[in-house]
């Protein structure tokens, strides 16, 4: 394939500049980190709260189901026109949309992680005189940690993917190569954008899968390792 032969030289010739690979990489990575971090900041405490108190469970179920049903492209599509008057050339519409997108997977996993903890273990901890706060921080949080990180991983990979779609709404990132290259009929630019965003998604997945292993309290069976967690949403 001709396109793939020219891929590396194209990337090599477009590394720097205001529309270069370095700049677009920075944009895409920053957006992913920011949106996922904000999502985690909201979703982890909320999931811990609901999992610990077992209150408002229906809310989590509703958000999880809606998050799966509403297409991620739809979230970009709805948020962008509504938030387009904010400054920053599409930055805030993209951030708001991706932040919203990152919530359901993290929230669901945090909730399920806490909820699935053996009741006997919690009772034993309380029987030993642990306060609710300690139960939450020293028992529920560490035991739920692998699932929480898996939720963050799913959210981050979804954000990397959907950030590409945010470029259709005017924002930058790798999606610019795809959208602009397509508009100008430069196939090599389109393919370069696709290869870069695919690589970023895989790197994100691998890094956070590594973190997931680090926070795992004990080694799970090998079979579980081969069957990755169900991802709540993707783009």
């Amino acid at each position: 394939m001709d396109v793939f032969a020219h891929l590396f030289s194209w990337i090599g010739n477009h590394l720097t500049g205001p529309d270069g690979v370095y700049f677009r990489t920075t944009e895409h990575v920053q957006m992913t980190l920011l949106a996922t971090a904000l999502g985690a900041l909201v979703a982890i405490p909320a999931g811990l709260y609901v999992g610990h108190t077992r209150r408002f469970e229906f809310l989590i179920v509703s958000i999880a189901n809606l998050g799966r049903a509403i297409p991620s492209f739809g979230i970009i599509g709805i948020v962008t026109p509504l938030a387009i008057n904010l400054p920053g050339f599409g930055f805030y519409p993209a951030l708001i949309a991706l932040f919203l997108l990152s919530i359901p997977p993290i929230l669901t996993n945090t909730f399920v992680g806490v909820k699935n903890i053996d009741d006997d273990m919690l009772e034993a901890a309380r029987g030993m005189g642990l306060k609710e706060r300690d139960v939450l921080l020293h028992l529920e949080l560490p035991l739920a940690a692998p699932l929480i990180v898996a939720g963050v991983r799913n959210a981050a990979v979804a954000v990397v993917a959907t950030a590409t779609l945010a470029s259709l709404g005017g924002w930058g990132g790798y999606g610019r190569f795809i959208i602009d290259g397509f508009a100008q009929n430069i196939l090599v630019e389109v393919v370069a954008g696709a290869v870069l965003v695919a690589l970023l998604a895989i790197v994100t997945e691998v890094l956070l899968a590594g973190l997931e292993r680090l926070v795992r309290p004990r080694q799970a069976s090998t079979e579980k390792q081969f069957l990755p967690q169900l991802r709540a949403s993707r783009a």
Partner: protein
Amino acid sequence: MIAEAIQWSWIGDHTDVIYQRLLEHLELTVLAVGIGFLISFPLGIYAYRHHWFLAPVTYATGILYTIPSLALIVLLIPFTHLTVLTCEIALVGYTLLILIRNIVAGLNGVPEDAREAARGMGFSDRQVLWRVEIPLAMPVIVAGVRVATVTTVGLVTVTSWIGFGGLGYFIYTGLQQFFTTETLLGSVLSAALAIILDGLILVAERRVTPWRRGSHAGGQRGESLQVEAAA
């Protein structure tokens, strides 16, 4: 804020094209999940019987699953161009991980007792598979089909970018003109389609697994019921 942004008259004026796009969306989804299942089913059974195969097939489909949809479509364009084939290959690709994983998990979850009982009754391996293991694995397999369907409905909106997107067409054109009515319409109908298809598959599953009708506990199945189903 959102309610004010909707132009109801626009929706009224476009009912024909909305219906057409909805049908297109449904076609693309059913085709993708159907083909995905036809590929996943033998692979899943093979991975269940030959454990060495599980890791490579899971990693391969997992990598495929991780690639963003827009990127996968683009990477297929040099090979299959701007055709419906490009969309379907991508859509089918995303169903594989979900379907294969659930087929294997479902088969692995079949109690050894049921298998033993069937063998004791003189069933061949093939009979055990088709008359015991697959029926008992059905709830988990169908759960996979439901997740794959909901996921695919969402992904079809993205393929609108190269012209085969069903309801995604409204999101795409609405986004280009910053027209909330259109993006909202596409998103809401797509979500509704996902929820309805999910429910329909659930109902269909209840019909083909009548032995589960008494048990409301989802995956919980009584031992006696399994032996009955096996016979």
